[in-house]
């Protein structure tokens, strides 16, 4: 029996064929679309899945002083690490030993197993630390010392395992090696005190410590400040960042951004020049394009662009003058031997280049190069070490302001260079006697003598006759209330970036308007008398006073300071104008400042062979509600042809005897000597 076949032209066959044909055309068109139109996208997607970009941070640029001495550089850091996994059998053995001891001591009490485990780890790591110190420490390198059996860990708690670090490591990065010694060669670390000792420690570890065990020595690069805390407020410090500087070289045809990225942690400036010059110092990252395996490992390097070190930066600072400033500041101490807070600035009077800028107390940027520990942050904070007193500290200028009162008096024709005023032991203002610092008064005093002996009564009289508005106008003409330091033309996160970040902006040159604005009530004559001797509401910074001294030396009103060396271009001191005194008046001011050093309040810091001009000041301020003194000295040198100007401030404490010439003078003297040695 045969089955009748359907006719080929049946409509059902045609429909089926149509469906198949449509499907076929759809598939073909789809493939064509994928192959022709989507080809490049698909290839890129495939590459994205099989490729990876590794981005590596560059080395930061070096910072030099004006003579090419490195102030900030990069150095190799050697870290001793322990492989806790490899130490596990040893830790287990120690744990069992501790457990047995614990049971022997008290059989019925349940031991704290976690504590025992922690103690076992610490004991084992401390034992290894003992071995490391035994090998690297200078004390053990002679036969005599070895036979005398020194006990390093017991004598030096800093050399023991840091419990907090160990707990943090176990909590956050258990899979990695534990850092036993974070910086074996760092000068000042528990391992070593000098660079030579550090080098010996590294060499001894490499050559003597058994290799192949659970303890290893690894190296990386770290930002280094070879002079420790020297100029720390200017140089600043760095911190970790994932925002690495860009590098587009050779990547035009690559869409690096769309590929899987592996980025290493880099460093960026967090304060000082490190922060403001970061765009220059940070350099260019390196990148590598890798084919990766299906397991995610790098397989083949396709192409790369190397990292480029940041551009070096040269500052106007002179390391010798900076050292002199900081060392002499650190010699001024309170009754229990702590250095008094203070600041010192020295600058070139013509170019405004800052040769030294010190602020005390300070911090050691080396201790911030890796990460800022809470302990160190709190320690610096408690000392007030984060504040750059030279640019951020606001102080009453005290008697150094008397120069401005004298200029205001002469410019407003209230007194002339040869006028002699009778200056008794006090001056009656309203119903209050404003005292002279000399109990019997000074008698007849002219401008020159006033500056030499720092007569108060002369200033009360002249200040009151000038009036508060004109006195304030004169101080503003010298820019005592204007922010200093140049604005940098970099594109940074902040729209306004000065050479050192965060300079003071709240300087105060008071007048009646100011007092009513702050709700202080009506201005009275006592306020004018106080202002005329640089006290009351007046507030400015040591850098402002150094700029004032520099301007005075040139017979002008403004000096624009800079931390970068003079490049030979025309120097423009923004907003400067002639001082507005005739020759005799200017000469009287200068002679007064000269006599201040030769026979006046600064005679104790006279420098044989280097005549210079100065004005001292001792201002009262209230520290925690009790009266203390600020010691000031400003001036310039040499007397005949000025090159450098300076300002020094020291914050006296409640129990210290602090005076301008006696306390601040020696700092200026040491800076000038250092400058004289190198000029």
């Amino acid at each position, binding site marked *: 029996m045969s089955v009748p076949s359907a006719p080929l032209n049946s409509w059902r066959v045609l429909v089926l064929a149509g469906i198949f044909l449509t499907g076929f055309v759809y598939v073909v068109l789809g493939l064509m679309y994928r192959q022709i139109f989507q080809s490049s996208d698909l290839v890129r997607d495939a590459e994205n899945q099989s490729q990876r970009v590794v981005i590596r941070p560059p080395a930061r640029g070096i910072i030099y002083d004006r003579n090419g001495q490195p102030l900030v550089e990069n150095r190799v850091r050697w870290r001793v690490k322990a492989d806790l996994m490899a130490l596990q059998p040893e830790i287990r053995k120690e744990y069992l030993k501790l457990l047995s001891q614990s049971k022997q001591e008290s059989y019925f009490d349940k031991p704290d197993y976690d504590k025992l485990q922690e103690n076992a780890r610490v004991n084992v790591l401390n034992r290894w630390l003992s071995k490391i110190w*035994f090998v690297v420490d200078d004390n053990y*390198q002679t036969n005599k010392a070895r036979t005398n059996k020194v006990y390093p860990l017991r004598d030096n708690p800093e050399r023991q395992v840091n419990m907090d670090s160990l707990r943090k490591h176990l909590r956050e990065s258990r899979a990695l090696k534990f850092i036993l010694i974070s910086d074996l060669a760092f000068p000042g670390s528990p391992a070593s005190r000098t660079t030579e000792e550090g080098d010996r420690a590294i060499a*001894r570890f490499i050559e003597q410590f058994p290799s192949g065990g659970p303890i290893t020595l690894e190296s990386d690069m770290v930002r280094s400040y070879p002079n420790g805390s020297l100029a720390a407020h200017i140089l600043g410090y760095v911190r970790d960042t994932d925002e690495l500087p860009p590098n587009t070289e050779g990547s035009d045809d690559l869409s690096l951004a769309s590929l899987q990225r592996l980025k290493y942690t880099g460093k960026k400036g967090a304060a000082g020049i490190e922060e403001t010059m970061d765009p220059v110092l940070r350099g260019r990252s*390196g990148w590598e394009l890798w084919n990766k395996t299906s397991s995610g490992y790098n397989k083949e390097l396709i192409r790369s662009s190397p990292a480029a070190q940041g551009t070096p930066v040269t500052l106007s600072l002179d390391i010798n003058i900076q050292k002199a400033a900081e060392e002499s500041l650190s010699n001024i101490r309170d009754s229990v031997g702590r250095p008094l807070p203070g600041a010192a600035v020295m600058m070139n009077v013509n170019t405004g280049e800052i040769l030294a800028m010190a602020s005390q107390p300070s911090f050691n940027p080396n201790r911030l190069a890796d990460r800022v520990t809470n302990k160190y942050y709190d320690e610096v904070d408690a000392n007030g070490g984060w504040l750059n007193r030279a640019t951020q500290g606001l102080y009453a200028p005290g008697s150094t302001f008397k120069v401005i009162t004298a200029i205001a008096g002469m410019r407003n024709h209230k007194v002339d260079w040869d006028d002699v005023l009778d200056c008794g032991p006090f001056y009656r203002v309203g119903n209050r006697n404003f005292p002279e610092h000399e109990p019997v008064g000074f008698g007849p005093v002219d401008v020159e003598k006033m500056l030499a002996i720092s007569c108060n009564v002369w200033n009360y009289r002249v200040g009151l006759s000038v009036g508060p508005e004109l006195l304030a106008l004169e101080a503003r003409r010298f820019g005592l209330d204007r922010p200093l330091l140049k604005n940098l033309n970099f594109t940074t996160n902040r729209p306004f970036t000065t050479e050192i970040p965060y300079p003071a902006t709240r300087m105060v040159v008071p007048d009646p308007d100011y007092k009513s604005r702050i709700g202080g009530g009506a201005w009275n004559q006592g306020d004018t008398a106080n202002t005329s001797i640089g006290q009351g509401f007046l507030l400015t910074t040591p850098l402002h006073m150094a700029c004032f001294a520099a301007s005075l030396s040139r017979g002008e009103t403004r000096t624009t300071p800079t931390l970068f060396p003079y490049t030979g271009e025309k120097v423009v001191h923004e907003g400067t104008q002639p001082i507005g005194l005739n020759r005799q008046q200017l000469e009287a001011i200068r002679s007064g400042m000269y006599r201040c050093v030769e026979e006046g309040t600064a005679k104790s810091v006279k420098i044989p062979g280097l005549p210079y001009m100065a004005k001292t000041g001792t201002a009262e301020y209230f520290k925690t509600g009790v009266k203390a003194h600020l010691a000031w000295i400003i001036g310039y040198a040499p007397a005949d042809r000025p090159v450098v100007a300076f300002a020094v401030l020291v914050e006296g404490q409640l129990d210290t005897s602090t005076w301008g010439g006696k306390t601040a003078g020696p700092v200026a003297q040491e800076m000038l000597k250092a400058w004289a040695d190198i000029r």
Partner: protein
Amino acid sequence: MEKNRQGAKASYVALAVFIAAWVMLPSAFRRFNREAFAEFQAPALQLLSKSRDLARYWELRSRSDEELISASRDLSRINAALELKLQSTDDIRRENARLREMLRYPSSSEYLTVVARVISRDTSSWWQRIIIRKGRNDGIRPGAPVVFGNHVIGRVSIVHQNVSEVDLITSPSFRCTAFLDGDVPPRIVHVGGMAGNSLSAPRAKITVIPNDYSPPAGEVTKVVTTGLGGVFPAGLIIGTIEGDVLPTPEARLKEATMVPSKVLDRIDEVSVLIPKYPTPGEILMSPTEFLKLEEFK
């Protein structure tokens, strides 16, 4: 046929049992075995070495009188030149001792020198290890530096009764610190042998070279010991840099390949510098000495 197959099976089983037994043996026993083998092998090696020396002796005996007279004349000249050098070296040594005393720096003369013939190269790693004809009986201690003239050869790794094994500077287990020519002021770099097969040319790797270091142009860059590690005296030549000093991928440090001194190719005799007093590292490696120190009890 079946018998042969059974015999083969039995030998495989025996081998497996032997391996298993060897693996399970206490490490002290295996160490003893290795030591015993080295001691057993030592006389044979010494005999071989002495035979070579004897052959060399008779070879020299066969030289003509003219050759000997000429060699003697050359030696006299060299001797005169060396005497002059010795005189100036004495002056320098005295000056050096005076300066060291002023700085309270440990004297490098705290070494005893033992001269030893090379009797064999360890064939399992041709360039990595040599055996010398001096051992514990001659005062050789593990870790002691081995030099030839002013060239570093390696360090003593294992000491037997009459022979010692020396890890060459190209051995992966060798490491020391060095200074590079042209690095002023000198900064420490790390030198370590490179693992390779016995057919490839021996090389070592210099790492942790500071990024701003550039070798002096047109000169062979010498790599010398620092003398800071307490093992090698300062200024001995370890080798020379081969090729470029290239940055690591991070561009933060550099690294280079080091070629050991040519003397390594034809070394027959070496000097072992034995510190008069054991270094802390040596004490650390010797449990009996180490445990005498109270702080580690």
